[in-house]
């Protein structure tokens, strides 16, 4: 007798509200600015994410996919990544270089070895000219993929400029040696003291190898361009190139340095030189043709190229800097240099990029110096490589590193070695070069919701208090795992989902489904309101047209 009632409703799941949608969210990884600006194209966000989870070795492996020199680069790279870091709009940039160094040092301490991607040896052989960062980076990538690689270098030690021109207080030799050894351990043949044309002929190189990578760097310094002719000869006791100064210092020569030294140049080499001179006990003045950091001359628009940290540290060490000044003439008393006359420089290069300074009359000043060191650039030495210089990739010859780089940054050399290796391998296999997965659309902080992140102080490596006492390393690394994890966690993960659950919590329609490693949008129900995209802290979600 009970009433038969069909009043138990069915599920609303039967109704697909997704049909209301006029725009739709899409999960889309972006290219964080750190990675985008990194000359070595490191996937910084990815390895910081691993580090934040204390997966140190995985983080190191992820990092070294692009750069096998973390301990080195963590010390000497000028970390453009940090100036691009979106976090500076919240508090201060992530200390990426300190993290990189921390992982690199940990790898050295733990004896971690690089992984080979390929168990099978490839039949092709590759020759690399130059054992600097570009050559080693290229060799590293090729060796990991099973290619047989031989590196030729005319120096007695591997490392190129890293070895010859970076002072010990920035990069202890042992750190570099350890990282090079780890690379070579992949089975790379290294032939030192082997200049092309002497140890092996250009034609042998082309005949015996399936591909050649020229990474000869820039070993030829420019000398004083201000004095036409007369002073352009070889360096002497009163005029020297910065490169020569650093080479000699790094070789362990006992240099006699006068009491007052002038360094001409506004780049990092100039800073290196100046700081080394300070460590040798002299007073030093840097004559820089550009403006200091933080000034933006709207017409000239030139800031000195040296890294800010270098400048700050140099000034802290007592280096004097004179900006927007050019050398008018060297002032001699007999054979002896007494100083240089400088003047306001309006412009250094002309529109065509040629060195053509304009110095304003009546602005001359005298700077006392018994030695002037010019650190105003360097060039490649192509002697003995005349045939190879004319070849192209079509001939199986790639060129990379400082020889073709504008920035002359070590990290750029590493990146160039990587790209050359990828290009070579694609060519050798007959494939197209696979584009980098992480290089998507760049993301700016404006597309992110920075209020979802807590302000956290940036941790710095400590400064060595006895820094001017010889060439001890100035900057110490991060002190421990806790600091490293803290700093890694500061990464905003720009444009890359870090599973904060915001989209999942906020979706009014339960159309965001949590799955292993992320989320899925159930387009059957998503109404396209856009809240998930609006509230995504890292800008990972795009609103696009309905497909």
């Amino acid at each position, binding site marked *: 007798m009970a009433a038969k009632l069909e009043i138990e*409703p069915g*599920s609303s799941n039967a109704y697909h509200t997704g049909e209301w949608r006029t725009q739709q969210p899409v999960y889309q990884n972006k290219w964080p600015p750190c990675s985008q600006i990194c000359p070595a194209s490191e996937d910084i966000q990815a390895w910081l994410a691993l580090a934040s989870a204390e997966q140190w070795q995985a983080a190191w492996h992820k990092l070294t996919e692009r750069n096998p020199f973390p301990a080195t680069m963590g010390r000497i790279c000028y970390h453009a990544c940090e100036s691009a870091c979106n976090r500076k709009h919240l508090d201060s940039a992530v200390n990426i270089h300190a993290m990189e160094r921390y992982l690199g040092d940990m790898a050295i301490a733990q004896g971690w070895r690089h992984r080979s991607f390929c168990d099978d040896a490839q039949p092709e052989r590759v020759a690399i000219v130059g054992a600097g960062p570009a050559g080693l980076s290229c060799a590293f990538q090729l060796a990991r993929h099973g290619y047989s690689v031989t590196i030729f270098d005319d120096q007695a030690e591997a490392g190129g400029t890293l070895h010859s021109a970076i002072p010990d207080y920035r990069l202890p030799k042992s750190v570099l040696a350890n990282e090079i050894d780890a690379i070579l351990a992949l089975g790379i043949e290294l032939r030192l003291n082997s200049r092309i044309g002497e140890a092996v002929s250009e034609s042998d190189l082309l005949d015996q190898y399936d591909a050649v990578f020229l990474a000869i760097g820039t070993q030829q310094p420019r000398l004083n361009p201000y004095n036409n002719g007369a002073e352009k000869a070889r360096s002497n006791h009163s005029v020297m190139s910065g490169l020569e100064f650093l080479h000699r210092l790094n070789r362990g020569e006992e240099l006699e340095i006068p009491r007052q030294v002038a360094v001409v140049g506004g780049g990092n080499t100039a800073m290196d030189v100046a700081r080394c001179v300070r460590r040798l006990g002299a007073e030093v003045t840097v004559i820089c043709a550009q403006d200091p950091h933080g000034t933006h001359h709207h017409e000239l628009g030139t800031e000195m190229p040296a890294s800010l940290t270098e400048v700050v540290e140099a000034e802290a060490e007592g280096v004097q800097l004179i900006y927007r000044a050019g050398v008018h003439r060297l002032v001699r008393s007999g054979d002896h240099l007494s100083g240089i006359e400088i003047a306001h420089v309006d412009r250094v290069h002309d529109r065509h990029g040629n060195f053509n300074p304009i110095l304003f009359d009546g602005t001359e000043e005298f700077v006392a110096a018994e030695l002037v060191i010019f650190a105003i650039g360097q060039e490649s030495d192509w002697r003995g490589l005349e045939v190879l210089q004319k070849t192209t990739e079509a001939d199986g010859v790639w060129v990379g590193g400082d020889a073709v780089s504008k920035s002359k940054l070590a990290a750029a050399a590493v990146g160039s070695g990587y790209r050359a290796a990828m290009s070579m391998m694609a060519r050798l296999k007959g494939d197209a070069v696979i584009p980098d997965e992480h290089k998507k659309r760049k993301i700016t902080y404006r597309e992110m919701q920075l*209020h979802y992140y807590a302000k956290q102080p940036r941790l710095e490596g400590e400064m060595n208090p006895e820094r001017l006492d010889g060439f001890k390393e100035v900057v110490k690394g991060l002190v421990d795992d806790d600091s490293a994890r803290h700093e890694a966690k500061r990464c905003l993960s720009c444009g890359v989902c870090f599973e904060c659950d915001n989209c999942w919590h906020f979706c009014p329609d339960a159309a965001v489904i*949590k799955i292993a490693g992320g989320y899925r949008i159930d387009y059957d129900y998503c109404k396209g*309101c856009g*809240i998930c995209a*609006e509230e995504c802290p890292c800008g990972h979600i795009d609103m696009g047209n309905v497909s």
Partner: protein
Amino acid sequence: MDKRDPFRHNVLTSGHRACSGCGEAMAARMVSDLIGPDAIYINATGCLQVFTTHNQQSAWQAPWIHSVFANAAAVASGIEAALRISGKETPVVVQAGDGGTFDIGLQCLSGMIERGHDILFVCYDNEAYMNTGVQRSSSTPHAVRTSTSPPGRLSQGKHQLKKDVISIMAAHHMPYAATATVAYFPDLKAKVEKAMGIKGPRFLQVLSPCPLGWVHDSALSVTVSRLAVETGLFPLVELEHGELTGVMRLAEQRPVDEYLRPQGRFKHLFNSKNGAIELRHLQALADARIRRYGLLDAETEWDTDRAMQSERHGRGGYCERRSHGS
């Protein structure tokens, strides 16, 4: 049963017909999932009831009942009494809009609290009668345009103030009464969990933006609710037995302009002299609430910044694994 998501119950599942970007759907989904399916839900008439049970399609995956507009708290009282006499401890949760709480439902709600029923009453406060097309309620803030408080030559929107319902609740000396909003999920979660751990009548007022009635972009529902708090216009507070026991401190006070401008319901204030007076009035109201609750100087670490923080791998979900299903 919807078993799409292993990490939440979806007590309020997909396919409901709330407007795109609905703050009430968002709030109800959060609250009901935090409580889970082992509870009985009573709904007053209103948007939530209509859009979740459209024409024999229910979005509820827990026992749910709707009777009439005014009586949700009384129906819940009866359910709770029935459970009590049967020795069952199933939680009882009322969900109502501001109409069903501040206005037509206030008498039953007051009775429920006075009698001490073990019920959580959740008010999704969207500050007007949205279900019937945005008419003014006693929860509608001062100077807001609604279809029954239109601005005109002699009017700048609603003349009266928003009813201070949380103080009315507190005056019942009930065990727990709190305000929350969707923008601060960790705060909402903490309050729901706290409320569920207390016996007796409990009240939660959840500010739930309505893109339709507040006239803002549907993507801004969370943003607007955050600004309501950060300007001081909607203080997040907890009251136990009538005493103020917790406030969410403002990391910094934002000017009310930032909250008002994205919302069309305040648009008329921005292009007239009298409107400018009301803007100053609204700012003064925010300042007064900040002073009243000590929102800038409260001695608590719980502030708007902390409650906003996102963390890798989530800020706490609804369930580790679903109780039933995958």
